[in-house]
């Protein structure tokens, strides 16, 4: 009798292409993550959590190639005094990086810490694991199991300058899996910058443990390579009176899925997550945010703005979950899209799930074209149509950019957005 034809299992096919380190402190955590991945399987088209984004190219065993985008622009944050850590196609570049030493913090690389004991041993993968309920995030579990490298940053007191991770893309077929862990001790503060396209395909997880009274600032610019794909996850846990601020700007990229999972576990904590994106043509950008309030008197804010043209697609899935007992919660969420032409689309699912009565939670979502009256006003004052459109676009994005606490970084992002918008042909 002929054997039944086995349907290929995409999860096992993917696992077969990947390699897990056989020794070191992270092995147990990686094995656990692999078990989680096998239990849920990789995301499929029909998964509710992937309703508006097709996971196909993110889960296929071999990444689609992506051309390297050549341009003459100065690198973002170049004039910021910072500690640089450079990855090229997911591989650490020691020559391009600074010495990984800075007062107040220790920086180790995931790949190099093969000793059995490390501060990250009992933390690596724990926030990711925590973030698997109520919604499974298999790509993050896959990352924990198979990450080839990443940085482990332990912040014991506030360093003098930001840490900056730069991702360069050099090979058209690169497929990178990076996993960072940031632990900010009580009372300390860190600013982390990230920029660059990373690889043809990037799967990145960053776990951030913010202790009581600590603060974490994050400004990220995802690279402009048109054909690159990225699936990123941020998992953050916030202690009492802590502050978490994350801002992401995305311009171009054929596929971007950014998940941000935040849990406020200590009273009086505050979490802000914001995103501005500008997309053209085949651009597909998905922001999926899940904020859990599990403590009293916390505040959270989600601000997402998307400018879409020439058939670009913007997706926003945001959720505020207020657990029973998380009284005095102040939750806010706004997602807006500006559609610059008839072909672009915006798909949103802004959710609230609330089990406490003394809360003020709201969300808003809008979608529409550029305001013709405002455009007319500017045109009547001699501003060209393109310039006027750019001005209105920048003002539309401003609310998200405002979420960056440091003024100098805010100005950099605004300046860059203006110049990117101006370069219409790119």
């Amino acid at each position, binding site marked *: 009798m002929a054997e039944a034809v086995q349907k290929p299992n995409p999860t096992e096919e993917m696992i077969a292409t990947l390699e897990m380190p056989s020794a070191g402190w992270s092995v147990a955590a990686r094995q656990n993550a692999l078990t989680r991945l096998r239990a849920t399987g990789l995301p499929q088209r029909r998964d509710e959590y992937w309703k508006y984004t097709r996971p196909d190219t993110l889960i296929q065993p071999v990444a689609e190639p992506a051309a390297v985008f050549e341009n003459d622009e100065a690198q973002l944050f170049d004039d910021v005094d910072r500690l640089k850590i450079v990855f090229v196609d997911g591989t650490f570049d020691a020559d391009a990086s600074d010495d990984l030493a800075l007062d107040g913090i220790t920086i180790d690389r995931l790949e190099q810490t093969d000793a059995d004991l490390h501060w990250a041993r009992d933390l690596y993968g724990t926030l990711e694991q925590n973030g698997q309920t109520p919604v499974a995030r298999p790509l993050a579990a896959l990352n924990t199991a198979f990450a080839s490298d990443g940085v482990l940053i332990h912040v014991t007191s506030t360093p003098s300058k930001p840490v900056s991770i730069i991702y360069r893309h050099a090979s058209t077929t690169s497929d990178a899996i990076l996993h960072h862990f940031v632990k900010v001790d009580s009372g300390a503060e860190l600013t982390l910058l990230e920029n660059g396209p990373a690889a043809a395909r990037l799967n990145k997880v960053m776990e951030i443990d913010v202790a009581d009274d600590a603060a974490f600032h994050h400004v990220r610019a995802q690279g402009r390579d048109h054909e690159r794909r990225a699936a990123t996850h941020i998992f953050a846990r916030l202690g009492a009176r802590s502050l978490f601020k994350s801002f992401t700007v995305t311009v171009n990229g054929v596929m971007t899925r950014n998940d941000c999972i935040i849990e406020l576990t200590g009273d009086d904590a505050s979490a802000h997550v914001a995103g501005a994106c500008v997309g053209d043509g085949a651009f597909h950008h998905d922001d999926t945010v899940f904020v859990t309030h599990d403590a009293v008197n916390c505040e959270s804010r989600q601000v997402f703005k998307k400018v879409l043209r020439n058939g670009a697609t913007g997706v926003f899935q945001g959720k505020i979950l207020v657990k029973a007992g998380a009284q005095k919660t102040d939750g806010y969420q706004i997602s807006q899209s500006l559609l610059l032409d*008839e072909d672009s*689309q915006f*798909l949103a699912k802004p*959710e609230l799930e609330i089990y406490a009565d003394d809360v003020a939670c*709201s*969300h*808003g979502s*809008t979608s529409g074209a550029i305001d013709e009256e405002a455009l007319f006003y500017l045109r009547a004052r001699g501003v060209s149509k393109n310039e006027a459109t750019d001005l209105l676009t920048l003002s539309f994005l401003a609310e998200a950019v405002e979420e960056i606490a440091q003024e100098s970084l805010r100005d950099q992002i605004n300046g860059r957005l203006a110049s990117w918008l101006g370069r219409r042909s790119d």
Partner: protein
Amino acid sequence: MDTITLNEQSGVKDGVDQDTVDAVREVGGKYKHGWSTDIEMDYAPKGLTPDIVRLISKNNDEPEWLTEWRLAAYDRWLTKTEPTWAMVDYPEIDFQDQYYYARPKSMAVKPKSLDEVDPKLLATYAKLGIPLKEQMILAGIEGAENAPAEGRKVAVDAVFDSVSLGTTFQDELKKAGVIFCSISEAVREHPELVKKYLGTVVPVNDNFYATLNSAVFSDGSFVYVPPGVRCPMELSTYFRINAENTGQFERTLIIADKGSYVSYLEGCTAPQRDESQLHAAVVEIIIEEDAEVKYSTVQNWYPGDENGKGGIYNFVTKRADCRGDRAKVMWTQVETGSAVTWKYPSCILRGDDSQGEFYSIAIANNMQQADTGTKMIHLGKRTKSRIVSKGISAGKAQNTYRGLVSMHPKAKESRNYTQCDSLLIGSECGAHTVPYIEVKNNSSRVEHEATTSKVDDDQLFYCRSRGMDEEEAVALVVNGFCKDVLQALPMEFAMEAQALVAISLEGSVG
């Protein structure tokens, strides 16, 4: 409209006349429709088989095509699974442990007119305050005869378990060309209309419960308003579940032909029983060019007791299809009853410049669970929709708004505005919002706003300092919260709804 309170001591509030207060006080108390009528019934055997489907069809004297239609739906149903995505949780339903057809014995031979109907049945409706006499009175509220009548008439179709008892004002409606009767009568008298429209808005295989309904629907109302006719009175159907272990599967079909107008009201109650009962209805509305339909529901099925025992499972598919240009539909619902509600009255805005509106108040108290909302599918150009949803949770209840606004690429210059607000009373309940927004063209504008908050302490304090007790104060504040929706209801329903808001929240404070 002035807000009415149930204050015994303070007497009549300024600007509210005594009659109104009395009328509202009348409906006060616990679930007041929980009594049952002791009457001999004919049941189909328990369970669901093709034979039961045939039996229901035969009892309704249906033509063969409809029997076949039902049997095809039954086959489809066997292949479907119950939806699990709603935020509701209830024990598994044994679909073979139900009666799918129950008819009072006296209805075996169809009475020629309401005068011939068993007095016990008529008394049931009298007790519910539903006017089956053709007289000018307000529907829905006992004692409302005393309220100032404006000479408005309401025609009523009374459905008792699986059969329609009769329909009032049929002659007068006929003069205007309006057909208003039970769906079983329509199948006999107007088969061409039923055949043309049945299942065209909610297809047989639409979802698990709609498919089940297509197989076993027993009775419900049929409305046809011919071109250019403004229906001379409000039409109303009153559904009563009485028999034990019996599901009610009503089917309503409303057709508003070109340029016509009709306002339709729907009310429902059931006795208080320890066993949960199933209610799976389908409502289809077809609206042609320039026509307008208003559909209002006050859903007050038995909600179960405070421990979650008993109550109706209300799994309903309601959809309106604006087929012609400038067609207009307005759904208004006040959902206070049922143990579990799963209901999404939707609008397909196919015609250019067509409009859909959805106004909803959903109140869940004790162990009730409500997952309700709407879908606005914009297909035509310059279509407009508006959603106003107010969800109130108290006790240990869970209340979810779930909705979809979809702007298709061809729906140029369309517009949607959505507002959903949730109010939480007590720390053990939940309020959730799950909207889906899909915008596929840039000339349309979509706005969605949602808030969740608790009853404002300042407002409560203000009411308390004026001598109201806490429950009255909450009822007043909640009524204010719901005002936008209450105002969209026809007057008769608005009064009932306002009183219901107060009753449903009883025991939720403190």
